[in-house]
Each structure stands twice: as C-alpha cells, then as structure tokens.
C-alpha cells in the first residue's frame, strides 16, 4: 500500500483523535485491543517480564496495560501515545491507582519515540502497529530503544495473503485497526529489517471476533439508551454496524485474524 506523507499524517491524526474521543471510549471500553487484559497478561507472560525491568508501551492509550504490567510484574513502564487528552487521562488513572512512581506517559509518535536508545528491556505494542503508516520506521524505533537481548511483544490484526474486502480498506475502517494490517510473514519481515528476530508467534483469532462483537453490542446499547445524543455526537450507528458485520464475516472467512508475536534484539 502506498500512502503519501500528507495522507499518512492525516490518518495518524485521525486515528489518535478517534481513539481519544469519548464516543470511541464508550464503544470500545477500557481495554481497546482484542483479547483485553487476558491477552495482555499472556503477552507479559511470553515476554517473561521480571520486577525492576523497564518497559515501553507504544500507543499506550489510557494506560490500562501500563498499569497492569506495573502492578502485576513490578516493572516500570513508559507509555507513549499520540493523543494529548489520552496521555492526560492515562496520567490521571495511574495517579488514582497509586502507580505514578512506576508508570509514566509521554506525548509522542511511534515513529519517533521520545525515549533514549538501548535503555529498555521490553517494548509492547498492542493492536497499534497495523495502524502506523510507516511501519518500518516504527520497527526501527522499537529496535533503537531496546537493549541488546531486549524483546518486543506485539499483538495485532493479521490478514490473509488474499487481502481484505475492498470496503474494509477505506479510511473509515482505519480506526477499526484493520485497513493496513499485514500478514504474519510481513510483520516478521518488517521486524527483521529493523534487526529484530521473531522468536515466538501465537494465533488468537477468536480475540478479534470477540472485539467486533463488543463494538457491535456497545453501539446497539447506546442506540437503545441514548439514540438522539449518539446521533448528535456524530456516531453513525448504521455505518458502525455495517463495518462490524463486514469485519465479522471477514474473520469467519479467515481473512482477518489476530496474532501475538515476540521478536528479540540480538
């Protein structure tokens, strides 16, 4: 897929704004990624995080993962997100949870992480890599901030070689995290080019189906309880349900999946 720089910037801004939007928060819930905190725990387990280690959470959102990693694994986490209100919300939530000492958030871009080189034991990036317009740059940034032997853990949408139905590749589908998803092999190659060797992969296709169901049912709930205000907020219920149904079918057809992938810096 070729994308002009201007388009890429527009997409990133649109994506970040959408994820920072309260209407989107209502639709997607606390944990924005498929698999929820259960899959986050699995990712932490596979990364074998140890107390005292330093972790970067790229596209940290409101910080649920960062808080979980700090609380359950005793690591310190630097979360990076592109949306200013999102970063502010993440800070507040970490404060509320009494975790400000071990969890910090930075406003920043995955393709230019505002963090020093070689300082981190692990990088996590959940359901976000597929939305980065310049994936090669993001992968290079993962490699840059990791110490030798450090590992990146990614969970993300995968597509089959056959690709997606045309309707799901439009801009409107970007925030649904699928339009620029790649095959597992392509992710592996992107990481390899950045010098990261993939050491472990797992399929979690059910998680993405579950996520689509959740979006569909949250929108239906909002239509039941607050249809007028939902419309006033600019949420087109029929469009959301339409995309959700398309995506659900693509999952059933094996065109969309979800994968956990761990790669290591030599």
């Amino acid at each position, binding site marked *: 897929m070729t994308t002009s720089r201007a388009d890429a910037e527009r997409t990133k801004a649109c994506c970040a704004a959408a994820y920072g939007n309260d209407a989107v928060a209502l639709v997607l819930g606390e944990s924005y990624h498929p698999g929820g905190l259960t899959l986050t725990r699995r990712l932490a387990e596979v990364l074998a995080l140890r107390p005292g280690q330093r972790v970067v959470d790229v596209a940290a959102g409101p910080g649920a993962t960062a808080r979980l990693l700090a609380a359950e694994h005793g690591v310190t986490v630097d979360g990076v997100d592109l949306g200013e209100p999102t970063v502010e919300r993440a800070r507040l939530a970490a404060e509320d949870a009494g975790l400000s000492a071990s969890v910090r958030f930075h406003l920043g871009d995955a393709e230019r992480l505002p963090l020093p080189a070689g300082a981190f034991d692990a990088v996590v990036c959940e359901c976000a890599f597929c939305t980065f317009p310049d994936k090669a740059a993001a992968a290079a940034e993962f490699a840059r901030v990791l110490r030798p032997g450090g590992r990146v853990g990614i969970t993300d949408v995968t597509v089959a070689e056959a690709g997606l139905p045309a309707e799901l590749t439009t801009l409107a589908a970007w925030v649904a995290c699928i339009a620029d998803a790649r095959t597992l092999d392509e992710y592996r190659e992107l990481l390899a080019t950045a010098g990261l060797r993939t050491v472990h992969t797992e399929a979690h296709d059910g998680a993405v189906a579950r996520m689509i169901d959740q979006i569909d049912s949250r929108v239906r709930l909002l239509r039941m309880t*607050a249809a007028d205000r939902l419309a006033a*907020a600019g*949420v087109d219920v029929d469009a959301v349900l339409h995309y959700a149904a398309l995506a659900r079918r693509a999952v059933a057809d094996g065109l969309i999946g979800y994968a956990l992938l761990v790669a290591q810096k030599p």
Partner: protein
Amino acid sequence: MALDERRKRDRDEVFLEYTKSICPVCKVVVDAQVNIRNDKVYLRKRCAEHGQFEALVYGDAQAYLASSRFNKPGTIPLAFQTEVRDGCPSDCGLCPEHKQHACLGIVEVNTSCNLDCPICFADSGHQPDGYSITLEQCERMLDVFVEAEGEPEVVMFSGGEPTIHKHILDFVDAAQARPIKVVNLNTNGIRLATDRRFVAALAERNRPGRPVNVYLQFDGFDERTHREIRGRDLRELKRRALDNCAEAGLTVTLVAAIERGLNEHEVGDVVRFGIDHPAVRSVAFQPVTHSGRHLEFDPLTRLTNSDVIELIADQCPDWFRVGDFFPVPCCFPTCRSITYLLVDRKPERTDVVPIPRLINLEEYLDYVSNRVMPDAAVRAALEKLWSASAFMGAEATAHSLEITAAAVPRGTPAPELECAACGIDLPQAVKELDERAFMIVVQDFQDPYTLNVKQLMKCCVEEITPDGRLIPFCAYNSVGYREQVREQMSGVKVADVVPNATELQPVVTDSPYGSKIASNGDGRPAVARDTTNVGRKAVQR
C-alpha cells in the same frame, strides 16, 4: 528369537479427573473417572455387582476445561445440619465438608400432582400413598434455612404440584414473614390458568422488595412435546396462565425440560416467545433429568449444557453465539450457564444485546489467574447475576444489573471522565435497563449416571427436608434421599429409583409411581455405604 508382533496402542481418551459417583442400579458409592474422548467429556465408573457405566457429562471438552477458572471460593453457611461420617454423598446435608452455602432452598410441599407427566424427576402424580407437609413442618423447614443462611436469597416452593396444597398461600406468607428475599413458585400453571382469585392472591403477596416469582413449566409449542413430556396438550392452559400472570403483574420464568429427539428444535421459539410475552422475564432450560420418572434414554447421547447452548445459538443466530453464555462460578461452573440480554422491542425490529459481549466477564470472574483484584463492586454485582439466586424481579438482581451496565463504558466507572465530549450519560441511561433485561439459564442437573461428587460438593441449590436437612438437589434426586424422605414421611416403603436407560432395561421393572426400580428387589439401604473411604490401610499386609 522372533520379534514380538504385538504393538502397544494409545488409549482413545484423555484421563482428566478421578472422583466418586454411585452405581445407578444399587446406589453403592463407587470410584469414577472423567475422560475426554472426541472432544466430549464422559464419566465412567464400575460397580462390583452391576458392571461398568458411562455417561456423557459435557458436549464440549474445551468449554468444560475453560470453565474451571470461573470457580468462586465458596461461602461457609452459618450452620451445618449434619456431620462428616461416611463422606460424600452419604452425609447430606449440609455437612461441614460442603463447599458452598445454599443460594436457593427448595421446599417440596407434597408428592401429589394434578398431572401424571411421563417426565417428572419428583416421581409425582395422582398417587394415594404420598405425603404433604403441614404448616408447622413448613415453618420448621424455613427456620432451618434461615438458621443456615441468615437472610436467605430465594426459597422455591415445589412438589408435587404446590398450588394444589391447601396451605400454599400460608406457606408463602410464612416465607415472607421471615428474612427470605424472594419466593418462587414452581408450577405446571393449571391453577394459575383456571383460578384467577388464586393468581390475585399471589399478586397481593408480590410486593416491591419481596417478590413472588412464578417458575412455570413450559416445554415448547408442539402438541407432541406436550403429550410426550406432560401426557396432555396443555398449550391453551399455559397461554391462559401466562396471560393471567401478566394481568396481575406477576413475573414468570419459563422452565423448559429439553429432551433429545423431542423438543430440542423448540428452544429458539421458547426464547422468542418469552422475550415477547409481557409476564416473562427469564427462561430456564434444563436437559431432562434422568432421575425419577422419564422416557427411555441413552446416557452416552444425552443432552448437556453445551449442547443446549449450541441449540440456542443455532436457532437464534441473529441474537446469540455460544460465547454469550457464561458459566456460573457460584456452583461448580459446569453445572449452570447464564446469559443476560438487554432487549429493545421496536415495531421494525427487536434489538438484543447479550451483556457478556459488553463487559469482559472473564476479567472479573477468573478466580484462578487474576492477580490484581478487578473492581470489587462490579465483581460483586456479576457474582450476584451469575448465581443460582438471581431472579428477574429480585431487587439484588436489578441492582446488580445496574452496576454492571454502569461499568460497561470503560470497564471501571470514572465519573470525572464521563463523556464530556458527546454528553451521553450512560450510567443514567442504563438505570432504566432493568426493565429491558432478560435472563436465560441453562442448567444440567445430575442423575445417577452423571453424578460426580466434585460437583455435588459445591452445589448451591438445596432441598430442605421436613427433618431439617439441606440436601443438594442432585444428591436428593439421584443418590436415594428422595426415596428416604418419601418413605419416612408417608410410611410406605419406597424402592430406589433406577434410571430408565436403554442398557438397563433387562434389570429394571416399573415402580408404583411410573419410574423404574431394580427388578431383583435389591434390599440395600436407601443411602449406600461409602465403599471408597473403607477405613483400611492402602496396602494390607
């Protein structure tokens, strides 16, 4: 030397659990094993006298294993009624080894019924030699329940047919005079259909904070379903009973006994009918319990919870997927699964949203791998909803639905962040949701074939006996306690009921009540001695 041509072969099953059960014929306690074969879960056991028995206990091995994390530590009741002597299931109950308190207490008020259904786990009917309890006995039974629970959640009056007991309204009053929150009346609906004064009398007792809920047998819509399960076409009576309840403002749970090859095609229609009927707030599906009286069946192909859930998903594909049902952590998670729906009925469409899609239940109800405590108030609300004591119309259930729905936006309520941008106050909006909520329960009771003491020991549905015991429902119906109590109460000898399984036909004969009993006139005591805990050293030398 010639090579040995014999080759070792692998077993065709995964050995999963070692447990105890009973012989379905003589009811002697025997060791049992649970195995997975072809993605299904089977319980197998061997009686020294009657041979080997095997039954399907769960149709989906993955779901069976996955549910093991959703197992809530039990609550210790305020009082136990028996002591540990011979071990499970001979000490009921409840004995101090029982792992859970009673969410639901059942008072069977009689053995007579105005029907003689071919399927009846209580073996009731037009019988001259049964019993019915007195008001004093009922009060004592309720007192035992209160003594054990403090403030019991739910009592269910059952039978026989409880509505034909001349003191049934007094029994309801006796329950309401005690700190028991919800009264359930388990009925075939004949009196509700034909006696509007009785319906009005129940409705008078159905007060805010002290609900009376009707638990109405409702197996389907085909005439054949009615004739084979109930022996009569009751369709018109059921309709009138439901309409009378709606008119009087009584909430109803439709209770469908589902049998393989009989009414399994009707589960979707029962759900749709329930959602559309103004009196109905929930549906309970129960694979037919092969205790008491029932049709001939094959234990290896019986229906289980996962089968019923698949049937519902298949027959209402626009509304449900299998994953919308979540195991109940309060009892053993393979015994019962529940889903709640939010229903929006509009002329152009009925929108149905299963609550488990809105909130990641496993993040709250995983008691094994959760290291960080999830939001305690939300977890407590979900525990109340996914419990045997949840009933639509009960205050605790309505309140828990509100807390759950309010937690939907972000997983945890964060008032200061409440949607400034779009101005949607979801917690306020969901306050009205109780009216739209609908519950579906799938419950597979154990029978003498499927009985597994592992499940029995955490049962939270108890039969309250006139002599003041709380006996787990499946023990009461399968182990021999029902026969023991009936014999004590009626003074007439009652033989142990044996399942009407195809393979047992050569060894069974008819009981006076329509069920089957061993044809050799087995003279063993009704409650068998535990032959597992033999009180001997493991190796005799």
